[in-house]
């Protein structure tokens, strides 16, 4: 009976009922991409969420399939750079960093210099670029900070750069100034165990 229950559970996972919100043609195509990703050892949940985002936003089926397929490909690239032990959040953040302009080599380098999880470091990199910081400047800053900064320090670094940009500072200059300021403030960026501290704030 347990075996039967497990088989039923597996079937539930394969035919994710959430995908019933997609039209039949799109659902078949998206399910195919998800099945392939799962076979390759990639996480399926981010793909499901991207499809659901598309359908909730009223996107055309072809656009949803394209987005899911592209995400699957980027997840594979991120995993190639971060390693097979990378968690789903790390892979998702890795995709964001790649799309922000980081190279797979940079992701691999980050993995070498920082203890896991890398989720926050990769996310901050992507967020800096989204905020106008040139990808090279953002990548250089994260590589400098990554070995010792805590997750909370990285979040505060991003906010400080965003504040400076909002006040009129050139994004690249704001980033480099804040990196140097952090390097000169041992209590801010060089205390505590690296990489394993949740952010102090509960706001996005």
């Amino acid at each position: 009976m347990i075996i039967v229950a497990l088989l039923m559970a597996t079937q539930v996972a394969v035919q994710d009922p959430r995908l019933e919100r997609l039209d039949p043609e799109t659902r078949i195509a998206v399910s195919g991409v998800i099945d392939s990703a799962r076979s390759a050892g990639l996480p399926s949940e981010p793909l499901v969420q991207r499809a659901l985002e598309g359908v909730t936003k009223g996107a055309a089926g072809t656009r949803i399939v394209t987005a899911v397929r592209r995400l699957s490909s980027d997840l594979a690239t991120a995993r190639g750079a971060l390693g097979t032990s990378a968690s789903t959040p790390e892979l998702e953040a890795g995709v964001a960093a790649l799309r922000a302009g980081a190279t797979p080599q940079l992701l691999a380098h980050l993995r070498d210099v920082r203890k896991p999880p890398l989720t926050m470091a990769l996310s901050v990199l992507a967020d800096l670029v989204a905020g106008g910081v040139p990808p090279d400047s953002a990548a250089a800053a994260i590589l400098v900070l990554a070995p010792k900064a805590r997750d909370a320090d990285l979040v505060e670094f991003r906010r400080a750069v965003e504040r400076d940009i909002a006040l009129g500072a050139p994004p690249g200059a704001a980033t480099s100034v804040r990196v140097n300021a952090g390097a000169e403030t041992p209590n801010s960026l060089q205390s505590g165990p690296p990489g394993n501290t949740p952010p102090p704030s509960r706001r996005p």
Partner: protein
Amino acid sequence: MFDRHEDVVERVIQQLRRPVAIDPGLDARVMREIAQTPGGSRGWRVWPYWASLAAAAVLAIVLVAHPRSRQRESADLLQFVLVAPQAASVSLVGDFNDWDPARSPMRTAQGVWATAVRLAPGRYRYAFLVNGVEWRADPAAPSAKDDEFGTPSSVVTVGGKRS
């Protein structure tokens, strides 16, 4: 006068964004109340062997079908706020609620809409749906630069240990 009003709104937002303190003993008290309710143990007439199998089956289905539920124990409670005085309804939708507008409706206090969601460590895309038709990014959060569906979204990252 206008500046003073904005200052008040800003202070309200700051208050709404503060972590919600939940009494750690709440679960224990609730379970104690349930245990003391008369007739609370009725209905367990199933043979224990079959009950165990049924429980195992249900657990297996939950774990396989909803892998993220395994991370809930390390989730943080985050508050999301949008100032939209003219809105009749605002929903929070994102990777954490299957992009379902019905799952996280927001409540308003004089045009300041807010809701709280428990999130496990990870990076999440989300947006506000105003009046059921208008998509808005969170002005207080980084934007999702790779939006592929033509509407704005934001991202929130919750730090934590490897899951």
